[in-house]
């Protein structure tokens, strides 16, 4: 990649840009960096897009008049996205964040014709000279959720509502199960796929079915508000995702894996302003602050809280590896041998359930 000619052209431009910024204070305040955000969903009050919007606000608070920001929400992944990104470029956006896997191709397409604009695509994997990608190891937080569930569940049977059996969802589910069984070795995860990221009615029906079938604690990988509500109504503990869900279940929501992009976005903008930004494939986790555990519910006893804090430390420092062997799938096949750690490439194409998940096999490659 360093040998691509565009890269050199871009480096020159970036240097020139940084030089312009450094010239005088007036030029600096008169010419703030325009940072634009494209969201695939409406912002709402919780969820993936909401967390990116929180990060944008953090960025504005931190950078003051050095930047101006703009966002467009609820844009379908496809031709619509390309049109909006092109508009961003025409309006003078110099840094464009497109946090969605489905925005990867449109971003790359526009980036080819706008070499002096920097693009950051969240959850994609293809980079270019002026396109960086970033993603988080959400499963680190899922493991901790599993430990909390294992510590709080009486029966050791936990219900899990999944959207689609894609690697990211399976990583979270399997990490959760490993965490659960690190506390309760006989713990079971009952799994229901609803085949939808967003259908409160169906999520609620699935949550009720899981409770009826003996689960006393719920976790999910869908939008989830309806599930946290159902838990609160039925007095079952829930573990949340994307955002801090405690407002939806003040008594029963134990904690949530929160996506916190703010510090990373601030770093990216600082790098761009200083002219040292480089295209990269960034993967962060608890260590980098891309995810956090939401404050634990009052119902969680002190010793569990201590344990969670220790886990957060150990995972951040690398002392504890979530997918360390032996990892056995639910058909008894060994996926990671004892003493080994699952390589990143295997994580990226995870397509099985670990032992302890009581659910249906996802089909496919």
């Amino acid at each position: 990649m360093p040998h691509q000619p565009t890269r050199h052209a871009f480096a020159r431009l970036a240097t020139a840009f940084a030089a312009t910024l450094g010239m005088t204070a007036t030029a600096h305040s008169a010419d703030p960096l325009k940072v634009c955000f494209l969201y695939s969903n409406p912002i709402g009050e919780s969820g993936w897009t909401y967390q990116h919007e929180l990060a944008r606000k953090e960025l504005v608070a931190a950078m003051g008049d050095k930047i101006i920001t703009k966002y467009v929400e609820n844009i379908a992944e496809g031709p619509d996205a390309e049109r909006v990104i092109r508009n961003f470029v025409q309006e003078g956006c110099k840094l464009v964040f497109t946090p969605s896997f489905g925005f990867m191709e449109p971003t790359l397409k526009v980036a080819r014709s706008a070499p002096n604009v920097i693009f950051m695509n969240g959850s994609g994997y293809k980079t270019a000279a002026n396109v960086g990608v970033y993603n988080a190891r959400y499963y680190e937080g899922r493991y901790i959720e599993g430990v909390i569930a294992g510590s709080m569940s009486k029966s050791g049977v936990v219900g899990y509502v999944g959207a689609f059996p894609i690697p990211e969802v399976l990583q979270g589910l399997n990490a959760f199960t490993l965490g659960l069984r690190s506390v309760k070795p006989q713990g079971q995860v009952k799994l229901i796929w609803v085949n939808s990221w967003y259908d409160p009615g169906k999520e609620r029906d699935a949550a009720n079915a899981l409770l009826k079938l003996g689960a006393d604690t719920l976790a999910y990988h869908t939008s989830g508000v309806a599930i946290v509500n159902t838990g609160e109504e039925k007095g079952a503990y829930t573990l949340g995702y994307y955002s801090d869900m405690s407002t939806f279940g003040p008594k029963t929501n134990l904690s949530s894996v929160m996506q916190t992009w703010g510090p990373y976005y601030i770093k990216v903008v600082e790098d761009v302003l200083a002219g040292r930004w480089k295209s990269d494939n960034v993967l962060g986790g608890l260590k980098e602050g891309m995810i956090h555990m939401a404050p634990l519910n009052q119902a969680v006893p002190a010793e569990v809280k201590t344990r969670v804090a220790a886990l957060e430390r150990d995972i951040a420092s690398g002392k504890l590896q979530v997918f360390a062997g032996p990892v056995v799938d639910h058909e008894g096949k060994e996926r990671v041998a004892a003493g080994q750690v699952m390589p990143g490439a295997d994580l990226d194409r995870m397509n099985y359930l670990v032992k302890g998940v009581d659910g249906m096999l996802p089909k496919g490659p």
Partner: protein
Amino acid sequence: MDATLIASIIGATLVAGTPLIIVALGELVTERSGVLNLGAEGTMAMGALSAFIVNQAIGSAPLAVAAGMAAGVAMSLVFGYLTLTMLANQVASGLALSIFGIGLSAFIGKPYESAAMPMVAPIRIPVLADIPLVGPALFNQQSLVYVSWALVAAVAWFLYRSRAGLVLRAVGESPASAQAVGYAVIPIRYLAVAFGGAMAGVGGAFLSIYYTPLWSQGMVAGRGWIALALVVFATWRPIRVVLGAYLFGGVMISQLFVQGLGLKLEVPAQFLSALPYVATIAVLVLISRNAAAVRLHSPVSLGLPFRADA
């Protein structure tokens, strides 16, 4: 499977089928008058939002449902004006109404996004709810579930046993003949459209008040389209609409339980998720395979504009 499990599947099936029944019966009456209103999805969204706002403001479920109904009527009258008075294309206007309702509800609903209300307690019917097994499932339900049963009876009676229903069907079959014998085709169609809108509003209110007591953009999640499809596959007959709605709800709920039981079936979960659609269409097409009977029950003038002065 033990008895309580079956009872909870039946109970959840009734809840899942209820919004479909209410919306589909409304649309059935509209279509029987010869008007095709494809705006159910957007009308439900507006009904759900209006009901939620009223419920949050004054905490009264019946008034909230009334607000949902009012919003549904308002939406349908916009449609009625476009198609009945201005003679716009019904398919295009209905689709526009759906998109409009989904967008407008998202816009107005922003401050209410993901807000939640407490669940409304179900109404237990004494004696009947004590019947073993099916009692608690059938007779310990939300009020609108019982209302939907009454609605089925009322619509069936209206269409086939009342004079007004006969007139409505005549208008749907041949508006020109109906007008020739002195019936006011356009006002009758307005009433039918308003009834369909009211029911779509109530169906939406059921979602945001009784099913999942919250407002969130996109919470209707395609139920309006399913209701529209049910009317066609049920060949415009109320009892078959009920059959289709409960079949759909039943297969949907059952597949969730099958997954949760961890049965080792050699089918992908996606197949189970598609099953409610496949099963409902298959059964309704099978029972409606008599072409002559379908022709007999489908409103001949469905979707065609009618000019009273032509």
